[in-house]
């Protein structure tokens, strides 16, 4: 059975997802010992060539697959620490196509802002579960910063799984699962009414959570999931990365300008502040 990771990258004017994918893919390849495939679009590929990361990308990625860039009306507020923010477009609507695109029999689907520094996810390749999704997020500061809607998709709704990491086997069950994710995405307003979540922004986490809930007979099963994601939110800042792989963050406990420092090493981490991740790209690329 061929296993590997898959990462999607569709750049916008403000975020270089291709560069983030190179880092994320390189770390996954190094620490999990698996091949990695990049899914991107022509304009992002052109930028990769222009920004001189294409050569490195061909070394890191086993395949670079180009698809049409998904049309999006999705926008998100991009924070870089607590003070800087802007609203940017967000092309995330083609994640459900992972099933059709992946060249692997068992695939680890990763967000480009998830950095792998351990081999923990290797435990799950032989799981009998066809589709596994990260159970939840663990905030680097602690539970006090985990909001209700980080745990549930709505006030009265279902448990939120985090589609930052998804592992699936290419089989009939997974095909149905991804078809359902796509169906939820296509009928997002309807599912928003049914599951009572805010439909302002399409979220893969929500679509994947609903698909998992439905496929599980409208019950939540948290016993079969990928590990919770250690997460630094976008109001935190990745301050520095040293050559030994230690990542130092400035963490904002109260979401204001009072920061404290936190450092991690040998631990997988979800870095939601993309700008600070990119600022540390050179140091991170040294680690792959």
């Amino acid at each position, binding site marked *: 059975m061929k296993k590997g990771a898959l990462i999607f990258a569709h750049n916008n004017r403000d975020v270089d997802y291709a560069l983030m994918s190179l880092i994320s893919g390189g770390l996954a390849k190094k620490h999990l010992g698996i091949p990695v495939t990049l899914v991107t679009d022509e304009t992002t590929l052109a930028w990769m060539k222009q920004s001189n990361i294409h050569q490195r990308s061909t070394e890191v990625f086993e395949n670079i697959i180009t698809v049409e860039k998904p049309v999006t009306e999705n926008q998100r507020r991009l924070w870089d620490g607590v003070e800087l923010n802007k609203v940017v477009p967000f092309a995330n609507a083609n994640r459900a196509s992972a099933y059709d695109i992946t060249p692997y029999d068992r695939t680890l689907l990763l967000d480009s802002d998830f950095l792998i520094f351990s081999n923990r996810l290797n435990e799950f390749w032989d799981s009998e579960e066809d589709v596994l999704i990260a159970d939840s997020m663990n905030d680097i500061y602690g539970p006090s910063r985990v909001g209700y809607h980080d745990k549930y998709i709505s006030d009265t709704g279902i448990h939120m799984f985090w589609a930052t990491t998804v592992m699936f086997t290419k089989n009939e069950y997974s095909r149905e699962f991804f078809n359902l994710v796509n169906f939820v995405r296509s009928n997002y307003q309807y599912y928003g009414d*049914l599951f009572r979540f805010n439909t302002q922004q399409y979220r893969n986490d929500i679509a994947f959570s609903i698909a998992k809930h439905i496929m599980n007979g409208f019950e939540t099963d948290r016993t079969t999931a990928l590990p919770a994601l250690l997460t630094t939110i976008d109001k935190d800042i990745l301050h520095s990365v040293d050559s030994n792989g230690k990542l130092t963050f400035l963490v904002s406990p109260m979401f204001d300008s009072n920061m404290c420092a936190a450092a991690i090493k040998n631990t997988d981490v979800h870095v939601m502040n993309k700008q600070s991740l990119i600022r540390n790209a050179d140091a991170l690329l040294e680690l792959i």
Partner: protein
Amino acid sequence: MNFGYLIVVSTSTEVDYTQLAYALALSIKNTQKPGYDKVALVIDDPHQISRFNSAWVFDHVIPWDKEIHWDGRSWMDQLSPFDETVCLDADMLFLRDYSHWVDYFVENSELYVANKAYTYRGEPVTSDEYRRTFTKNDLPDLYSMYTFFKKDSELAKEFFTLGRYILKNPKEFSNLFLSVSKPKVVGTDEAFALSAKLLDITDEIAYELEFPRLVHMKPMIQNWPWPADSVSDHVGFYLNKKGQLKIGNYQQSDIVHYVEKDKINTEMINILEEIAWKK
């Protein structure tokens, strides 16, 4: 094995408890396998059941009017016609076969009182919103709505006898043992919990188990981010023609203690009856 479920109701001007017991008995007949589906109803006015289309779901109808409302349940050991009994609250519904739980209790227990409850999302209830008396007075967290006992058990006899005595003397026991946070009413749950504590038998009758799984639909314990007056203000209650129940987006497969008595209406009864007739 002579096992059965016991439901104790009395006439009320506000709630038709007999109809709730009828719905529960129908749901038991619809879901439990033979030998585990017997139901006995203890009722102050047995004539009430003649209005039901399928009164046969009550295998035993026991006239009894010594207590009103929930206090009657404390006499369960003396009222049950079965050797092994699970006494239930009337406002509950069975949704799948739970007979393997009964097998365990018959094999391993003389007396077992439920001590965990779950939200409609399947999460353990952690809030003590309705149970401050329990937490503040360090009472075991017992839920009398599912109580298993054996008729010949001395332990059960002692437990229920003291429970009844507490219910008959609520002020005295409150002043002595529940002084940190006195309940407005000493109900069956409080009486059972205090009885277990005073007899020091909590570890014997309420030890850690993964079952019985009881979904408790009181609104303030649903892990919602805001206070709620009633569950049905916020999530729907949908029973389909197969007798499958969804609450909100969640399929229910555990015993549901729905609390809101108006959930059982004619439409619900009709669905449950039709399933019973076709079985």
